[in-house]
């Protein structure tokens, strides 16, 4: 078992090593084929692991495999240990499964790119780091993966680094993440100081056995760790890097900035659910920021014109849902939404990649339209993704979003305000996603001069598989009133308990009906505004001013940060450089140098090179000596 777990981790490492060492002279597709094969192998092994875990009794499904002692100093003992339990297994399956599909897609998408091999090396490195993150059995190892995926994200956002804007987008992502990671590190130190251990299992048992931790400490630790999660998972106030991260290749956006890496924050909190449940305040903050982000990002998404930016804001919004679910104690619902979101958001991103590919790099949806005929597979699968994210029944997003809304309404940690925000966001989601679909695929073509063509099979197969998953993915978490077993909740429950409920299950149907009505309302308004009465849209935009302008300009948050954080820091840096460094430090150094130079110039004139001169000095010196010796 130990070997199988390590093998899952090592396949991507093996793939990238071979690619790195021997791939230089291979013909183009082989680097991609190798990388895809490596990830797929990991996926197949994870499936074996899943069957193994399913055969174990419900309460005994945690396997910790310790390989070697990593850090051992004073009271700190950290092993290189991997932990397999239902939640990490869900993540492993999503990472390797969706990862394999996106690797396959990338072979077509990245064809003829000069950085083809480099791209797949980065992608395999990402899978490796992500697997470390989700399999880690202690916080430091999780942090290794955490930083590793951050590095890969940076490398892949700035993949086309010749373009200065793209390189800057990578830099922005990296720097914003640093802020969160600093919080995470401090939180980790506090965990060690408070509990004396960093292992997840020991941490949980310690919290459950003793209640000596004060509420303040637990709140501070939870909030600091949540700061890290907000950075990695793009929540208010650190979400600003994710829309810019769309500068990377589209499959990267699908894999890293939608399906897997950005969900790491959610995963981390689910992993530490016992710690978070100590502090209702921290849970409240997580829930509020989560739902707040969901609504805020949806408001921005509705007026963006770049196809990838819309999807980026929608990702932020959906991540907000997940944090909202975590915040009300519905960890299983968060993980469920994480999984279904990975399916339909990867699908939507890959679909948008297919559109961009067909239009030779065009990303502005105002210059698209009418692509339904030219791109039949892409448009059908994209529509499935749109319906899934909008929460239309039987599609995956419906069940997961519904579960979140239900727990928001019923959990002791939830309340009606959060539910209202969640429902509003659901309506907005349906509206902006339908707008995206209409502007891209329906209407008359606004693509003069180009002849869009459907993508090669390596790109369309992942689309079809993901579309299938976006339809059936929701059946693993059926609600109570269907009388079918709720597979995902039962699977997760031993690790993360369900919250206490204040409402009976008969109320669940009401929430469901309301959310269905709202989803259809969103689609209906979308149809009314963008298809049947476009003139109404202009009138509405005028009536709602200045909200649409703000939304279009992303509520000026980037400008706000630029003015109040980046600007002062830059000015301070300028001051440090131009005044403290150049005027004070450099001058002091130059002064001490010039003093010695002048002194030695003077002194060196004594050294004439004339031996007789030296002899004269010696004679004079000797005379002095004699004088002083005999003087008395």
């Amino acid at each position: 078992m130990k070997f199988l777990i390590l093998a899952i981790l090592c396949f991507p490492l093996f793939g990238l090593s071979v690619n790195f060492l021997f791939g230089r002279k291979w013909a183009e597709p082989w680097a991609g084929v190798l990388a895809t094969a490596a990830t797929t192998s990991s996926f197949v092994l994870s499936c074996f692991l899943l069957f193994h875990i399913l055969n174990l009794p419900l309460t005994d499904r945690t396997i910790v495999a310790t390989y070697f002692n990593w850090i051992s100093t004073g009271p700190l003992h950290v092993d290189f240990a991997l932990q397999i339990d239902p939640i990490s297994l869900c993540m492993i399956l999503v990472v390797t499964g969706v990862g394999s599909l996106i690797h396959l897609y990338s072979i077509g998408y990245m064809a003829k790119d000069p950085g083809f091999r480099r791209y797949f090396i980065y992608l395999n490195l990402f899978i490796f780091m992500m697997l470390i993150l989700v399999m880690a059995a202690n916080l430091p190892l999780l942090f290794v993966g955490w930083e590793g995926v951050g590095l890969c994200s940076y490398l892949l956002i700035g993949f086309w680094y010749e373009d200065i804007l793209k390189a800057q987008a990578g830099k922005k992502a990296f720097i914003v993440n640093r802020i969160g990671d600093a919080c995470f590190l401090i939180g980790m130190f506090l965990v060690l100081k408070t509990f004396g251990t960093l292992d997840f299992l020991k941490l949980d048992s310690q919290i459950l056995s003793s209640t000596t931790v004060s509420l303040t400490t637990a709140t501070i630790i939870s909030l600091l760790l949540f700061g890290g999660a907000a950075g990695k998972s793009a929540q208010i106030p650190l979400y600003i890097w994710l829309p810019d991260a769309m500068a990377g290749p589209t499959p990267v956006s699908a894999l890293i900035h939608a399906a897997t890496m950005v969900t790491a924050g959610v995963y981390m909190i689910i992993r530490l659910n016992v710690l978070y449940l100590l502090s209702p305040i921290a849970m409240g903050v997580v829930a509020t920021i989560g739902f707040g982000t969901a609504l805020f990002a949806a408001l921005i998404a509705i007026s963006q014109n770049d196809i990838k930016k819309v999807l980026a804001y929608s990702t932020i919004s959906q991540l907000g849902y997940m944090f909202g679910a975590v915040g009300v104690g519905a960890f299983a619902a968060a993980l469920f939404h994480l999984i279904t979101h990975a399916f339909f958001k990867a699908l939507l991103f890959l679909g948008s990649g297919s559109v961009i590919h067909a239009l030779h790099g065009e990303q502005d949806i105002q210059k698209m339209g009418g692509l339904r005929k030219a791109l039949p597979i892409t448009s059908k699968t994209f529509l499935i993704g749109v319906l899934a994210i909008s929460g239309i029944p039987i599609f995956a997003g419906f069940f997961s979003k519904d579960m979140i809304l239900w727990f928001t309404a019923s959990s002791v940690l939830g309340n009606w305000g959060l539910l209202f925000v969640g429902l509003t966001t659901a309506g907005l989601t349906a509206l902006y996603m339908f707008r995206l679909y209409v502007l891209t695929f329906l209407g008359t073509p606004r693509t003069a001069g180009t002849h869009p063509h459907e993508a090669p099979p390596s790109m369309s197969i992942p689309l079809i598989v993901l579309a299938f998953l976006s339809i059936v993915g929701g059946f693993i978490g059926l609600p109570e009133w269907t009388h079918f077993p709720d597979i995902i909740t039962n699977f997760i429950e031993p690790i993360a308990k369900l919250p206490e409920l204040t409402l009976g299950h008969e109320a669940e149907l009401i929430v469901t009906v309301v959310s269905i009505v709202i989803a259809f309302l969103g689609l209906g308004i979308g149809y009314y505004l963008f298809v049947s009465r476009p003139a109404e849209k202009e009138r509405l935009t005028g009536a709602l001013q200045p909200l649409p302008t703000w939304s279009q300009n992303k509520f000026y948050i980037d400008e706000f940060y630029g003015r109040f954080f980046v600007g002062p820091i830059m000015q301070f840096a300028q001051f440090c450089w131009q005044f403290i460094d150049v005027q004070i430090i450099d001058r002091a150094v130059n002064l001490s140098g010039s003093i010695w130079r002048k002194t030695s110039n003077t002194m060196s004139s004594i050294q004439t090179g004339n031996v007789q001169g030296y002899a004269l000095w010696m004679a004079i010196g000797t005379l002095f000596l004699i004088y002083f010796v005999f003087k008395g």
Partner: protein
Amino acid sequence: MDYSGVMLVTSAAIFTIGVAGVLIRRNALIFFMSIELMLNAANLAFASFSYFLNSLDGQVFVFFVMMVAAAEAAVGLGIIIAIFKNRKTVDLYDLRLLQG
């Protein structure tokens, strides 16, 4: 008769001549000879004191000084010849290569 004053004055005179030669003459050979003069002035003083004090220590020292002087002469002359071969001059004023 007490010759001690005469001997020591002679020794001091020879030594002073040697010092003057070292300080003034530019020819390396003369310079070198002047050093030998100083050594021999010291030898004379050693020998005189040995005689006056009825002790052989001074004479033993003289032998050592002569031996060291011989070795030094061999090395020094070798250097002077090597310099002459290279630079066709033994004028000390032209050999100020180690000027600061």
